[in-house]
């Protein structure tokens, strides 16, 4: 056992040496893999990925490896693109009982969630160990208009451009949780009215020094996405009414009961960032995500961490498959769908030429919880290895 451990340690050590020995010079690495799940172009068995300066230069079975390039042998491993968490709240607070929302003001559109992010939080390391390489940092669901989420890559130790989007849109919440007894709105009708009032005001806003209206103005112009929390059927219906009225470029967040009106969601091409499949759910609720995707709704998964364990973003997708979601759709929900919904698909979400070399290496099928994540690579750099302590 110990001998085996030591051996694997040596292997990892040599791999990391070969990956890091390039220093600051332009790095070219070839990775030979047993199975490459490209996501957008099927599964390549016994393929090669050429990583050049943090980008994927080539991928396929018949790929020429340039002379003098070290080959990383992963021929018994599975490689998938870095997993993208559609919505989470990591690194935003000192404690697990994080406060993600403004509790006194109902409207916080000018608030940037990135300002509260601690890039050295231990959550970041935890996310990496679970194969998550990019996240949308989001506020919670207690503010009717709730601040601007950010999209960040999790190689935050480097002083490079890990912030992909400082402001990825504006969050809205039409959920009952946005109602409070000690500040407006206190009723559902009041909540809808308040949101509309803000959008009306933003619509007629010309110019000036009002950051709140400035950002909302970009939302009603449909060039900045609106991320709308709505969970139950009535909340989703309210969201769609507002989306229609103001012609918003919108994404539904949560939509747990969305399967019941999946046709209406699909008709509007509204993508959904789906909340974690809770391990206390009844079978009936676990089947909802598969039904919704079956109706043609584009889905991405979210951990909402620390509400659930970051490790279980992948578990969510696996459970969705167990309860009826198509396997391919599940993998897309962890990668390319999330990238498209968050507007970063030009760089992330699949193993294709020209995209960032954000890769997750597993010792088995990515949609099995018993498969371990052995290594995580962001921009061609190893950011997590299983045996490191």
């Amino acid at each position, binding site marked *: 056992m110990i001998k085996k451990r030591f051996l694997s340690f040596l292997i990892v050590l040599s791999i990391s040496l070969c990956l890091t020995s390039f220093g600051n010079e332009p790095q070219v690495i070839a990775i030979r893999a047993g199975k490459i799940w490209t996501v957008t172009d099927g599964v390549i068995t016994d393929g090669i990925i050429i990583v050049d300066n943090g980008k994927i230069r080539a991928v396929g079975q018949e790929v020429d490896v340039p002379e003098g390039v070290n080959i990383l042998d992963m021929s018994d491993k599975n490689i998938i693109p870095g997993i993208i968490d559609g919505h989470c709240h990591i690194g935003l607070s000192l404690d*697990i009982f994080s406060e993600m929302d403004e509790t006194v003001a109902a409207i916080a559109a000018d608030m940037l969630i990135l300002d509260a992010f601690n890039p050295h939080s231990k959550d970041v390391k935890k996310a990496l160990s679970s194969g998550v390489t990019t996240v949308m940092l989001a506020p919670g669901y207690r503010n009717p208009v709730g601040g601007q989420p950010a999209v960040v890559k999790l190689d935050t130790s480097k002083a490079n451009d890990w912030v992909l989007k400082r402001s990825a849109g504006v969050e809205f919440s039409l959920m009952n949780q946005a109602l409070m007894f000690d500040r407006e709105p206190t009723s559902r009708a009041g909540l809808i009215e308040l949101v509309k009032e803000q959008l009306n005001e933003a619509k007629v806003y010309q110019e000036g020094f009002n950051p709140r209206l400035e950002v909302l103005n970009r939302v009603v112009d449909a060039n900045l996405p609106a991320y709308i929390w709505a969970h139950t059927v009535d909340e989703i219906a309210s969201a769609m009414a507002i989306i229609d009225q103001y012609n918003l470029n919108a994404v539904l967040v949560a939509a747990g009961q969305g399967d019941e009106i999946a046709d209406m969601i699909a008709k509007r091409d509204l993508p959904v960032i789906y909340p974690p499949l*809770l*391990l*206390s759910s009844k079978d009936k609720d676990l089947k909802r995500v598969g039904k919704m995707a079956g109706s043609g709704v584009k889905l991405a998964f979210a951990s909402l961490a620390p509400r659930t364990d970051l*490790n279980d973003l992948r578990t969510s997708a696996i459970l969705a498959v167990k309860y009826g979601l198509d396997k391919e759709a599940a993998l897309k929900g962890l990668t390319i769908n999330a990238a498209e919904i968050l507007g970063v698909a030009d760089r992330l979400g699949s193993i294709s030429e020209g995209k960032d070399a954000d890769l997750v290496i597993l010792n088995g099928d990515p949609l*099995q*919880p*018993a498969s*371990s994540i052995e290594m995580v690579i962001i921009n061609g750099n190893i950011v997590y290895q299983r045996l490191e302590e």
Partner: protein
Amino acid sequence: MLKGVSLIYLQGIEMKSIKRIAILASLFLLFISVGTLSGQEIAIKAGTILPINDAPIENGTILIKDGKIAALGQNIAVDSDIRVIDANGKFVMPGMIDVQSRLFVIDSELNESRTIAPELSILDGLDPYIEESPEVAAQGVTAIYITPGSRSLIGGSGAVLKLNGSKDVGEMLLKDNIAVKAAIGVSANNESSSLGRLGDYSSIREALLETKIYMHNKEKYEREVAKYDKKMAEYEKKKETKPAEKIDKPKRPARFRLDPTHEVLAKVLSKEIPLQIEAHRVTDILNALRLADEFDFKLILDKCTEGYMIAEEIARSKAPVILGPVSTSFNDMPRLEYRNHDVRNAAILSEKGVKLALGVSGKDGASSKFVALAAAIAVGNGMDKGMALRAVTLTPAEILGVADRIGSLQVGKDADVVILSGHPLDTLSRIEMVLIEGKTVFERKDQQ
């Protein structure tokens, strides 16, 4: 008896029809006997049997008789007239156990408001009509262990139930008084402040010390009673033989008040029942180990969230652990105790040689259906496959003292059997059939 009935019946019939009726009757008897036989005897012809206590058996057969496993192996003779379940190409394993279940309990019924209440039994707060129960059995979980919650310091005793579909707690019950549940440093009762933690520890210790005194006083009383009985006998004898002599009647010792709290804890201190202590953080786990050292009781460590930080100490103590949740997602909201939760906990403890059962420890009863998923997540985070499977079958049965009945496929044990389309740690394997004591409690309908 049936034969007797038919003979009596025959007596009143004319001779010419006797022959015909005799044939009919014997056919009827044959039918009855075959019918009852097939109810008693079942053969499962499996692809791969995972007995858990032993190496896997390829193309094996399990013979079930009267709800028990009568034989298993590769060359088992099967009578042609018994029911055969064809599980060719499928996996067969013992029913899984959720060692931290909340099925049948409503949150408020988990604890009494008193903090020291070891005499309570979880059986008195169960609702067997909870609808999630069939969903749990349908995932191959055939037995659950439920205990009082963590709001009381000593909250009462837990029980093992079988998910046999009965609505009668008595019929589901496999064994009660498994262990007395205690909790140290759980935020539900004291916000986990260090002051509360000291208080928890000392309150439990105080209760155990009082029990020691109680046991001492009870023994003293019993000795005095014995002495009194002896004196009384002498007195009666003397009164009979020498009635003239004046003798003092012996004085009866003052009555000893039996106390249910201390009676139960006395069983803990005399090692009849283990004390199961829920402890999450290192301090609390070490305190639990310290208590077990001081009072010499059988300790079961429950939850053990930060156990990986002191794996060697736990291994040295030989205390078994029922660990969970493997992932905090099994609970909907993060709790303060999970601050240092690590998915590798099970792998690290098990590698150090700790006897370990994996529980789901879910928020609701429905979570119990994810026992196999919990084991698979543990494997994905470094736990040995065999150990993980054992941790949801035989190890919990051993820790809970029910391994004579459940936990593995062995001759003589209950026929609690799960048939799966693939390996149990493959999350996409489907459960085909679940038997409890030979009776089918779940069968997949959409056979493909």
